[in-house]
């Protein structure tokens, strides 16, 4: 078990617990965190699960793959540490991670 903190655009904080192997999108949806829709169920097809990983954690989550990169390149609030939450599979190493949510999803 680990924890991830989600910070909404208006700075509201939410903490979600996870078991290694689930995705950031999945735990956000499971914890009813507003601002992550996950419309396609994690198929990297909709772009409604954008999160901005805090700098210090970005090396743990890794960089986006080619298709994810293309999806991210069209998100209006793209940051250098942006990821699609459904493509970030949580490991025990990510316990304590903080991610920010954009104001709008795609």
């Amino acid at each position, binding site marked *: 078990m680990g924890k991830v903190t989600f910070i909404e655009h208006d700075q509201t904080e939410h903490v979600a617990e996870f078991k290694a192997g689930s995705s950031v999108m999945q735990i956000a949806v499971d914890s009813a965190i507003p601002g992550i829709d996950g419309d*396609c*169920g994690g198929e*990297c097809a909709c772009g409604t699960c954008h999160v901005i990983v805090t700098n210090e954690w970005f090396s743990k989550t890794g960089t986006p793959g080619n*298709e994810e990169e*293309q999806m991210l390149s*069209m998100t209006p609030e793209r940051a250098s540490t942006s990821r699609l939450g459904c493509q970030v599979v949580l490991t025990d190493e990510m316990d304590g991670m903080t991610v920010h949510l954009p104001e709008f999803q*795609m």
Partner: protein
Amino acid sequence: MGNEPHPPYQRPPLSKNYLTGDVDQESLYLKPRSVYENAGHQLRLGVRVEQIDRDSSTISLSDQSRLQYDRLVLATGSHLRHLNAPGADLNGIHYLHDIADSEVLREQLVAGKRLVVVGGGYIGLEVAASANKKGVNVTVLEAAERLMQRVTGPEISAFFYDKHRGAGVDVRLNTAVTGFEEGDQGHVAGVTLADGGTVPADIVLVSIGVIPETALAKGAGLPCDNGIIVDEFTRTEDPAILAIGDCTRHRNLFFEKMQRLESVANAVDQARTAAATLMGEEKPYDSVPWFWSNQYDVRLQMVGLSQNHDQRVVRGSPEDKGFAVFYLREGCVIAVDAVNLPLAFLVGKTLVQQRRTINPELLEDPDTELKSLVNGRLQS
């Protein structure tokens, strides 16, 4: 209220990674049960709504109980189109619509067995790809002259034809099925064809489309015509009753016509509109339809409706890692189908939404950056 024993779930994986056994059942659920409980929502599963009585604002349920409503939302989805042909009820003939179907089919997909898929639409093809991955010998029979004809253009159809053939799937176009041959103990042994031939089979999947589930609405006297008729606020003729998703034919503001769609995006967006309507906000449904399908290592993403196009522009080629087809009507981009090219899909989504007229040469030209097309500078 749900007829099935499961909490609401994603159906797309049923023909993809749930069928191949790569994800478990819980990962299909839209939300875990605890989210409903914590929100104070009651899930009543495994119960069928039998009838709506609009005079008394009650619904009657299969467990003999009744429930009163102030507002009612129908999200009854669709049911399978069945093939009426001699032998259609033999053992080993499958359909795929829900978790139970996917699990039964998955058990049958054993390496070396022969699966015949009747219908070359996207679900049949996804199953073909999943079964092929498991080492099953697959034949796809399609009556039309190309695959996925209802939803896509000839370039994409041809690409998937080559993809499946290349993977070893025997795809036969212009091939109409007339019935099924019986083998031992009432089990199917083959599929008979209009040209007199037979394709031997251990397992058959019939995948020939769905029909909107309108029985409840019809029974309550609500107007239905290839779907429950709703307006752009998801309201039926009765202001107390809304309807969303596969079961509806809605007034589509974007296309300025009545439209029925079978997609997750449509179900989700109509649900958002319905929620707004219930809360007294007016948030008309005006989304551009979009859709995806995964087969092998190929991701197809589609946006818009391509049926009425008068011009097609192909960007890249099927030999490239990714390519896309833009569908234009009177110079305006009305739809895009992107193969392993999410950027073209997303750019296309904006172009379609904004009804943009784009010089076809720019769409085609590899030196024109796709992203630059949405900024307006390159408009013709």
